[in-house]
Structures are given as structure tokens and as C-alpha cells.
């Protein structure tokens, strides 16, 4: 459990990070909170000759609120979000995810940007960002570029970030009145990767869905949003048959693989149940039941 040798850089500005990324190419990788990367190095699943830590950059940790968005610096640690009044007020779905994201020790070190840009289909925040329809800011040599969460996740451990780009900010839109969401995670044991996770964000008018975001964790090669289920919900009010049917669509679109966490059949069974629970919570939190 000792990592192979690497060189460690901790520059104080994003531009220097980009310089180093350009210089070392594929031999370099960004180290954010290290809660995923360090275990991979220690178990020698991967070797990275040049680690570029973002910990020396002061201005990447913040939570600021405006009337139409909440901006989160990529190096904000998970526990800062967990204890943020803004997040608690605006995004119950995110609070659900944070309270179940690994354990408090990991949340004190792990960063929001790291959780997202690692591209791990088992990480919890990607599905939440997909459901909330967040936008990510990537900085490269040419300046900033906005990437929609829904265009960001390409494949397992692969995102839309170019090699010499750094994820600097997560911008979550403010969901207007009568909206609410929920993230339900099913773990084998606790403080573990999930068997499945389901993120649902809804906005209602007169009790009927006018906007929906639904995405799932650990149920395919990447965090996946399910537009078919979102479309199905439009115009619908809460009813047990509605949430059951929406969950069926989610299950149909999921792509789980069998592993030590369970068979495909079991994972789909769990996904159905947690998606119904998340939908029920979302309807309740947006005043629709």
C-alpha cells in the first residue's frame, strides 16, 4: 500500500497548473482532495509520474449565491457544502447526497470538483448535478469554457475536460418555487459505494410537473440522466402509479453490470425502489402531495 514514485507540484495559480499539464501531458494528473486518486495509487492500480495538487490555490474554495444560481468553487470540500445554509435551503437533494457521501473523514478532505471530474460512475455528486442541471466551468489556455453537466460525463473515468483544462467552478441554477428534490442511495452496508443511487429534482405548477431532472449512480458506465422519464413526468401529478411508471422507465434505461454488489436483476430491483422513494420525496418537498 505504498504508491510508486511520483513528482508532486502544488502551484498557487490555475495558469501554472495548465503549464504543468501541457508540459507533462498524459503523465500528469490533477490532485484535488485525493480521496479517490490516492487509494488508486496506493493499491498500485495506477501510476502517475506527476501529481499536480490544487491545494495551493486559494481562490477555488467558495460558495456564493445569486438570485438565479449558486456558484461553488471546485476545491470546496464536501463538508463545507454539507454545513452550508445556502445549500441546505436551496438543494435538499444535495444534502441527501452529502450526508451519504463516504464518511465524515472523507468529506473533510474530498472536494466537489474532484468528485465530479473523476468521472467515476459510482460517485454521488455527478447524478445530483445532472438532476439539478448544473453547469461546470473549465479553465484552459484560452480562458473559461462552460460545459453543461449533461454534456460532461462521457464514459467511465472520462469527461469532457480536455487534458489541459481545469474544472474551476460548479454553477447550479436556482430552482424556483414549488420545486424540490431527493437523492436516495442504496449501499451495501454503509459508507460504501452504492449498489445504486437515484437523483430526482422536480418543479411543479398547480401540483403538476413542469420541469424534471432524473439521474442515476452506479447503474452504467457513467452517471446517467434519463430524459425519457423526465418527459414522462411532465404534466403529471403525484400518484403511486405515476412514480411507479417513471421508475420503470428509469430501470429500463439503466445499464448495470453484475459484480460483488449484486446481479443485474437485483440492481434493477433496488433501482426501482429507490427511484420511487426519491420521486415520492421530491413530490413531497415541492409541495405536490
Amino acid at each position, binding site marked *: 500500500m505504498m504508491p510508486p514514485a511520483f513528482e508532486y507540484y502544488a502551484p498557487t495559480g490555475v495558469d501554472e497548473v495548465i503549464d504543468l499539464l501541457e508540459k507533462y501531458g498524459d503523465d500528469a494528473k490533477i490532485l484535488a482532495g485525493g480521496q479517490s486518486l490516492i487509494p488508486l495509487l496506493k493499491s498500485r492500480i495506477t501510476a502517475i509520474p506527476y501529481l499536480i495538487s490544487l491545494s495551493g490555490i486559494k481562490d477555488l474554495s467558495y460558495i456564493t449565491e445569486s438570485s438565479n444560481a449558486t456558484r461553488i468553487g471546485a476545491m470546496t470540500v464536501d463538508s463545507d457544502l454539507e454545513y452550508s445554509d445556502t445549500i441546505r435551503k436551496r438543494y435538499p437533494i444535495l444534502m441527501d447526497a452529502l450526508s451519504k457521501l463516504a464518511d465524515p473523514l472523507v468529506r473533510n478532505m474530498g472536494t466537489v470538483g474532484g468528485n465530479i471530474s473523476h468521472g467515476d460512475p459510482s460517485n454521488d455528486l455527478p447524478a445530483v448535478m445532472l438532476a439539478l442541471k448544473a453547469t461546470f466551468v473549465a479553465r484552459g489556455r484560452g480562458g473559461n469554457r462552460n460545459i453543461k453537466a449533461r454534456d460532461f460525463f462521457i464514459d467511465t473515468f472520462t469527461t469532457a475536460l480536455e487534458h489541459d483544462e481545469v474544472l474551476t467552478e460548479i454553477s447550479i441554477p436556482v430552482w424556483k418555487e414549488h420545486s424540490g428534490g431527493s437523492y436516495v442511495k442504496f449501499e451495501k452496508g454503509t459508507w460504501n459505494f452504492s449498489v445504486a443511487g437515484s437523483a430526482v429534482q422536480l418543479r411543479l405548477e398547480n401540483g403538476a410537473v413542469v420541469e424534471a431532472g432524473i439521474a442515476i449512480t452506479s447503474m452504467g458506465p457513467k452517471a446517467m440522466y434519463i430524459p425519457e422519464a423526465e418527459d414522462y413526468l411532465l404534466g403529471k401529478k403525484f400518484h403511486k402509479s405515476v412514480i411507479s411508471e417513471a421508475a420503470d422507465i428509469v430501470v429500463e434505461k439503466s445499464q448495470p453490470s453484475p459484480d460483488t454488489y*449484486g446481479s443485474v436483476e437485483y440492481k434493477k430491483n433496488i433501482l426501482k425502489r429507490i427511484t420511487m422513494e426519491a420521486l415520492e420525496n421530491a413530490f413531497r418537498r415541492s409541495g405536490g402531495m
Partner: protein
Amino acid sequence: MISVDLSEKMVTGKGNFVDDINLPGMLHLAFVRSPYPRARIKSIKGGITSRDIDMKMASVGEGASAGFEYLEHPVLAKEYVGYVGQPVAAVYSENAYEAEDLVDTVGVDYEPLTAIVDPEKAMSAEPMYPGLKSNILADRYLGEDFQVDAPVVIEGHFVNHRIATDPIEPRGIVAAYDGKRLTVWISTQSVHTIKQGFCEVMKLSPDAVRVIQTDTGGAFGLKGGFYPEYVVAAWLAMKEGRPVKWIETRSEHLLASRPGRGVVGRMKLYANRQGRILGIKGDVIVDSGAFAGGSGEFSSRFIAMQITGPYEINNARIHALSVLTNKVPQGPYRGAGRPEAAFFMERMVDRLADELHMDPVDVRMINATREPFVSPTGLTVEASKPFLEQAVKAMDYNGHRKKGNVGFGWFVLVPATMPGETARILVENRGIKVWLGGTAHGQRHDLFVKSILADELGVDPEIVEWQKGDTDQLKEGVGAWGSRSAMMGGSALVEAARKLREQVEKKYGKYSVARLLDGKWDSYEYFHYDKPYTSLGANLITVSTDRYGRVKVDECISYYDLGKVLNMDNATGQNAGGCAEGIGQTLYEGLMFDQNGQMITSSIADAGVVKATMVPRYRLILHSSESTLPSKAKGLGEAPTIGTPVALSRAIEVATGLRITDTPINPEYLISAVREP
């Protein structure tokens, strides 16, 4: 003298574990391990190999055995490998990181062979090694064959899958050699076992080996044994004349440390319609792993002996089998055969109750014995019926039964009493130091040591210091395992204290604490004991389940006959930890293999470990009857690992309507009891 509270020391990072030892010029050792469950080794390039260390492991510690030389585990693999993780070669460096880098520089050319994975199929598979007639390592029948005319016959097939012992601190050693003497610092349950291991495997004279125990962060049976990595560390220290450290990684632990359980039970129970058990037959099949020796070889017989449990069963015939498979050799894990025996029997008794539509406790009552009883398999049981009557009342079984999903299980605890234990008391400079032959590894023996000396010598417990194991300080000793320490270690200490008292009386005519502390005294005792000393225990568990089929343990009550409780903190701590491990075995923990013999649970998250959120509050109710031993204590350590899985399995049966036959219980099976939403 200031008494340092051990718990405070440990939780504030002031412990001195083996990995905290850093000696000048120290080398770090790392191992090249087999990636194949079964293969011929065609060639090895680089590293320390069996060409350098051509030795075989002696079998020492709990479950030690002689014989089977041909199947003895080589220190480093020679010609073939029998399991994934088997040490093949070793590399070293002054830097621990570099040592791991060097692992990749050793080239091993293997010719993979088809692995033998399933112990039941292994019995009829082609023999693993040339010259063997079959893969059956041990084959014994216990009890006479019988025929009964029984209106009720129930058959059951049960599996307790292998589980990692998973102490917080994995195995580790530091070895140093001064040209004359080998000194090792080690995380262990017995410094004497370790010393014996070095003497036997490396042919060293006892005078040339000193073993010192470091703070030991859990052991659970694993660290009672002696392992190949220790030999390589000592060999290298002697060859290079420099200290050598080896610390096991968690990955190595899961792959190559000896796991517990791994036992199949095939039972057939005969009864009449009133619930009286007329006989039991069955096979106990231990998944021994790839080499002979130790628990993997002996435990099938130990399990078979205990099958009849606290019941008066006059006919029993059990076939005890230990079977070679291409897995790391099985080893003792807290309970070590006792939980398996209770699981197989208690599951059958619950089935009988269901078959006859009787309350499970009523069936147990009918079959309990009013008089002391020796079963056909050789298990000694005291009168169990009075115990059961009191247990049912004290735990309020009937009250719990009305309220919810309750499971009840009981058992005979067979502590590893033999051959006794040693203790030494040294009084000097107005302080008292104590060594026990079994070295505590997290159980806080210091607490009962203080209690005993306060009682026997009338001294202030504050001045009594429990010492970690050191073969230079205590010439002989056995080990801390098998629920024996309060019974055997405690009795040795009582006897040593009484001898000390006599010495003081002899010198001064009368004993007083002042006279004791004014002098220098040294008292050593080997308390010999060569009989079993069993006791009874029971557990009651209630559970609830959620819409995902998840089980929550609501209440866990233990009703144990502990004899005289030497220290209540010791007892409640042992109970809580053991219940947590029982819950772990039942619901979460299992080492699983694919059909090719590769372990698929290679991370601690996959292998399962119990966390604080998964356990209930525990209650320990004492059934007190002092033992006839000098310490008046009875066994405890393993009791909760025996009673918890049986009571919990039953509670889950009641909650879900499912039949529980295997541990850990598959969540996919549990969810099948919950209707689709």
C-alpha cells in the same frame, strides 16, 4: 507511580505498534505472491526464493498439528503454488516504497492448472498433489451409527462462508540479529508460539531467540499462529545483520492471511411428533485450503464433537471431513469451530419447531438435559434445562415474542483450557509487574489482572502493571485464544499470587501489603489443566426489516454463565465486540471466490466489515455460578460469536418467512421476501 490507562493511550495515538518501531539501518520486506490459485512454477528470476530459504512451516499455535509433512506449507513456494497470495519470493530495500517497487522486478513463469474451489466437489475431484489418493485431509466419524424409527426426518444443508479476521492492525514483525541472538518484535497472541515457530522452522536453539510483543491491535485468532513472512524477515535479518521489518497490507491480509469459518454442514435430524430429538447424523466439511496443519485440518473434528449442543441426544453420528482446496489455508477466527457447530444444530432445531408448529424454545426445553450429560460425539454438558428456564425468564423471551421478530439460540461454550497457562508476578521498587502466558491483543487483560491482585494480595490496583509478552521475562506460556484467558491465565495468576503470599508469610510469619512492597519478590506459576471446562450461554435478538429487505438488529441480549466475573468492563467489552462480529458474520462478512478460484472480495468494503451504524445496544445478563478453578471464572471471549449468528438467523426467519441456511445472508435473497412496490 502513575497508572496509564491503556484505552486512553490507544485512542490518543500513543500506542507502540510494530509498525511504530524504526531501528537504524532497517530493511523493509515485501512479497511476490502467486496470482494463480493453482500453478506449477517453471522459473523464478530475482528475489529471495526457495533456493535461498528451503524450509517448511511447522504447525504451532491454536490448532497445531503434527504429521502431513508432505503437505506442509513451504516458507517460499517451491515448484508449485496452491493459492492466490501464496508467498513465492521476497524483495527488500532500505525504503518501504522501493521494496514494493521491487516486487515487479521479480519474474515468475507459471503454468496455471485448474483450481479446486468448492470443498464439496473437491472430495471427488482429482487429487491436488501427486501421490495423494484424494483431497480429503482428515476423515473421522464421531459417534456410533444408528437406526431409529422416526416419524419426523429433516435434512438441511448449511454454509458458513470464509471470513477475514480483519484486525484493525494487520500482521507485522520487526526482526533483528546481533550475531548471537534473534530478537523479534511482533503483534501476537502468544510470544511463546512465535518463539517455538522460529526454533522449529529455522532450527534455532531456544536460547538464541527472544520474542517481544508490541501493542497488538486486534488478532481474533489469526495472530496465534506462525507464518512464512516471519521466517523470511528473520532469515534476512540474520543474513544481512540488519533489522528487517514486514508489515502486511490490507490487500495482503484479505488475500493471504488465514481466514476463519469456511465450513459446510449437511445435517439429518430424526424426531418424534412431540418434538423429542431421536438422533442426528451429518457431515461437517471444512474448506481447509491448500496445505495441511492447523485449524484447517483439525477443526472438522472439533465441530463434529460439538454438534449435539446443549441437548440430550442419545444417537449421533457425524462424519468430520477436512478437504483440500486451492485457497489460503483456513485458520482460527474468534469462535473457531464453535459458531459453526451451533449454527448447524440450532438451524435444525428451528426447522423442527416449524415442522411441528411448536415454539422454538419449547422444542429446546423438551430436548434439554436435566442431568449432566456426555453426548455420543463426546461433548460434556451440565444440566442444561435449569439454565434454559432461567435464560428464558431473564431475557423475557415471551414478552419479546409477543412484540416482534425474535430469535433465540443457545450453546455450549468449549474453551481451549488445555494445557493450562503461566503467570509471573514481579514485585520491586514498590511496584508490581505481571506477565501472563497468553498475551492480550485488545481485550484489556490489565483490568482483570488488577482485580485479581487487589483481591488476592490486597494491593492498590494502581500499582499493578500488566506487561506485554516477552519470552525473556516469562519462560513458558501458551496463548490468549479460545475463551481461556480469565480461566487459565486468571487461575495461574491467582496461584502465583498465593505462592507470593506464602513467601511473605514464610519470611515474616504474617502477610501484609507493606511487607510485600518493601521487598523484592518473583513468583512464577504454570497452572496445568488438561480437561475441558464447558459452560452454557444463550442469545436473544430482535430485528426489523425495511422495504429493501435490509435487516436492522434492534436488540441483542446475551445471557451467559461467566462464572465469577473478574472485571465487568472486560466482560461487557468482550460481549459487545463478539456480538458485533456475530452480526458481521451473519449479514455482512464473507470472502467469496469465483469458479476459477480468484477472490472477488479483494477490498475491505467487499469483504465486509461491521460499522457503528449496523449494531444495536447490547445487554449482558449474568447467569452466575462460580467455576471450580482458582480464578472462579468461566469462558467468555467466543460466546457471543456463537450465540449471535443463530439467534439473528432465526429472528430474520421470523421477520421474512425465509429459510436461513448460509452466512453471510445474501441481500438478494432477503429482498425476495419484500413485495415489489
